[in-house]
């Protein structure tokens, strides 16, 4: 299995670098994941999106639809792309430790 190394610890990921076990996630892991998605540092604005995604996932077991992220955080879609250049579904969700969605998406 592929992995990402954080502080000398190997954390299992899928082929695209999404972490496999949500329990492995912490803020340092988030930063390491961010660097794989063209995000060099995590600002307060980044954390607002990441925390919303994490909370939503905890409650619903799935990533929220992008429009919910826009509504809940108050950022426009463009602002979200400025924060996460690879997009909310791929970039932001990966950094928040969520799995990738599959199906007609």
């Amino acid at each position: 299995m592929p992995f990402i190394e954080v502080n000398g610890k190997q954390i299992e990921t899928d082929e695209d670098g999404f972490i496999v076990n949500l329990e492995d996630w912490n803020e340092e892991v988030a930063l390491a994941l961010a660097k794989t998605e063209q995000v060099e540092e995590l600002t307060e604005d980044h954390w607002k999106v990441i925390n919303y995604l994490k909370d939503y996932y905890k409650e619903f077991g799935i990533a929220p639809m992008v429009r919910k992220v826009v509504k809940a955080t108050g950022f426009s879609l463009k602002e979200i792309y400025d924060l996460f250049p690879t997009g909310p579904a791929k970039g932001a969700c990966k950094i928040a430790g969520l799995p990738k969605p599959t199906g007609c998406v």
Partner: protein
Amino acid sequence: MSKLPKPNEMLRINYMPPKTGWQETPVDFRPGTFLYSGRPESLETVGLPNPRQWSPEDEDWKLPENWKEIILEGLRERLDKFRSLRIFMDTCVRCGACADKCHFYLGSGDPKNMPVLRAELLRSVYRKDFTTAGKIFGKFAGARELTVDVLKEWFYYFFQCTECRRCSVFCPYGLDTAEITMIARELLNLVGLNIDWVVTPVANCYMKGNHLGIQPHGLVDSFEMLCDDIYDITGIQLDISFNRKGAEVLYVPPSGDVFADPGTHGLMGQLMLLHETGLDYTLSTYNSEGGNFGLFTSHEMMKRLNAKIYAEAKRLGVKWILGGECGHMWRVIHQYMDTMNGPADFLEVPKSPITGTVFEHAKSTKMIHITEFTADLIKHNKIKLDPSRNDNYIVTFHDSCNPSRAMGLLEEPRYILKNVCNNFYEMPEDTIREKTFCCGSGAGLGADENMEMRLRGGFPRANAVKYVHEKHGVNMLACICAIDRASLPPLMHYWVPGVSVCGVHELVGNALVMKGEKKRESTLRFEPIGTEEDE
């Protein structure tokens, strides 16, 4: 994820076949052109054989020891069970009519994407073990031994076919090449060879009712948000229900529309329309998926997932079922449902309570497509429409493969579009209706890791859109399939920037004049509306 070539590089397609013969040309798992293996947990969830970690790029695919026996026995069973398969195996005369009809061949130049050769991958093995000529004359009779390399080739090319059936339209014998792919995938599944983009949606659908794995409270939350948006746009509060016993109709949209734009906008349009007509319908959290990725796995899996819709219809005691803007769902309903899970004689033949129209053609499945329902409403003048609200859009229509080729749904979406917008242009004749070109991402191939092949396969479709974009200024590509709504936006972004994608009912929702609505200022995607005429 591999880096994508630029469009001009991608267009340098080499149609010259390799120097080596097709049996001597090994398969190349080039990143960007194949899909990841199925996650073992998903295989376990639905009881598929040989769950394990593996990758198509590995030398060792961790097959069961007797894999060859399993595949050949599986083929024998299927030849006995499906007379169609034996006919498809025996009949092809290699006339070549199908060769240049496949979008993957056109976009890749790889001869093994010619439907005739794709079928030959399986046929050659069939000949070796199941025909007298093949047994005696071997290679001279076009027969070959089943080896691990052959199996790898099957995996690559049968998961590089979207089962769109465009080639079948041109086959003088009418061979259903999608069914050849279906059987090949079934055989691959017997030894644990599936892709994650198919098997995880299947497992989700089986356990949680939809491909995405949205749980009941998540579904309710998402629908409520769509209703809030509708309220913001129209000033009208919709009252939707879930799992309501005694409703007249069970409404089953594809789950992709609950999750991602632009599907959500089309779903809003459908909810608005159903509200306006006063149809007594309910949604279900047990079966919250129109699509059926079982179709891309095996007949058995398709049957299991399809059964959920009917089990729910029975439990809730509805009279008939209304399906959303989904594509391959209609191949399952129209061509397989009746003999798999039918007849659904506990339901009634769908009858629109608004117009009185009885949909006789659905008397066996008891299920109609939302565009049939809406076209009938418009025909009977039962809804008020202001097409000028869509005046910002110059629209063309992409026939989704399965609604067009598997159920003949050609006129209804066009009739609706011509009534809800003022600017509608058709793409060239050879690329629409029964001859429509696939989006390039159907049959479970819509994963990001397969993006290069998706863009290659989608090129013929995109090229036709480019033609009307340049000729008529088309800026909106309407469709009636959730896979389309997920895959056409990146396809347009790559090949035809400036063209957006929408579901047909998004445009219906814009145009629909609702009783008691406030003055519309924005479209369903919260952009300024295209008209001042309401004033």
